[in-house]
């Protein structure tokens, strides 16, 4: 016997409370994100090997299956051979803690946080 359930009417108070508490959590997290500043250093971890780069240059870095582009303060994955290319679509990052992940290529690109950051680069 198929009963005629109206999906929206079965929402109960608890559901709404749960949903709103999650929304408040999200607002709180994003309010932290708003305070993030630009940072001139990026850490790239590929296959467990970590390297720190200055973002104050124009440079393309080659990793197996992936090309990372650094352009005057911002970083992106320019090309990746992974099937979904989410990392490529994420675009440029430039602020503290912003991260691009590419799980198939075992690659993590993270802008350094201000407490680990530096003022300038000698070259």
């Amino acid at each position, binding site marked *: 016997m198929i009963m005629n359930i109206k999906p929206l009417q079965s929402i109960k108070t608890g559901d709404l409370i749960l949903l709103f508490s999650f929304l408040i959590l999200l607002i709180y997290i994003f309010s932290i994100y708003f305070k993030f500043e630009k940072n001139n250093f990026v850490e790239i971890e590929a296959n467990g090997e970590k390297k720190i780069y200055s973002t104050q240059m124009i440079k393309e870095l080659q990793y197996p299956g992936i090309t990372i582009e650094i352009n005057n303060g911002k970083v992106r994955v320019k090309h990746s051979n992974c099937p979904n290319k989410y990392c490529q679509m994420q675009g440029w990052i430039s602020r503290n803690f912003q991260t691009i992940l590419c799980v198939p290529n075992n690659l993590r690109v993270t802008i350094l946080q201000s407490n680990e950051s530096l003022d*300038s680069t*000698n*070259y």
Partner: protein
Amino acid sequence: MKLKNYRRNNLLKKLSLTFFNFIFLCTFNSCAKNNFYENKQLIFGTILEIKFFDIDKDTAENATKEIVSQLNELNNLLHPWNESAIHNLNQNFENKRISISENYSTLKTILQKALDYENHTFHFFNPAIGKIIKLWGFHQDHITGEIPNPKEIQDILNSKPSLSQLSFSDREKIISSSNNKVLVDLGGFIKGYSLDKIQEILNSYHIENALINFGGNILALGKPSNRNWEIAIQSPWSSSLIAKLNLKSGSAIGTSGDYQKYFTLNEKRFSHLINPFTGSSDNIYSSATVLIENKVDTGIKSDVYSKPLYFSKEPNKIAQELNISDFMVTDHDHNIFISKSLYQKLKFVNDHEYKTITVY
């Protein structure tokens, strides 16, 4: 039909991306770093990075303006191949007659200072070998990359070009050279000299806390808040970093490296650092870094002193004679040679970059 779907999907992807990025972008411009003033300029192809801490915006902007105009002036005076006073002077050495009288006294001061450092560094820093650098093709905005005729280089080397061959006539305001193979190229001097000029300007504006990076050479004054200025040193073998370093107030750091300006021919790298004794760009080391904490000519020393360390076979002996306590040289095989004093100040990062560290 398929194409249409594909396009719509792409559009959706872009829309969602925009949504994600929007949250960050909307605060992008309004985000002012507390108490920091930052400025970045391109001066004749060299990046000038200025950071001030804890000063009002007007002073910061005026000081920046003055720094930029002074640096532009210096470049108009000293640029090795573009139209400049030095360029005119070099043409005069080849029997042309272009008046340099209006810049005579400034040029004289700068050239005499450079001569002091040439003698002081046992001619490892030699601004008179511009002709050889020109033969290597580094006197143009776009390096073409050709290997010069060794005979021509030997010709110039045989004449032993040196700034000491210049003579100054205060009355006629003429600078002449006894050796017509002299071509003055202050490339290894301008950045350091500029840093010292900038320091003078900052003093006149009473700016106490500043970090100046001019083409990689860094001068630190004061400190930002309760910490020291902290900088990174780039790895000579890749674009990543090799070490972190705290800069004391009034110190400067400079590096000469074969990765800064070079051309590649048959998979061999030819850098713009030409050994003044051999005229070749074949050197044992890939980079030499010096940290100067001395208060006199801090900038110039940070620029000039890296050359003798880079070119000599025994950098630690040269460093001893020049009284440089903080230095580091790196070779092509990813080995690092560093003085004990600098080793204690540095913090190495990116362990995969180097093979060994030798402490003198």
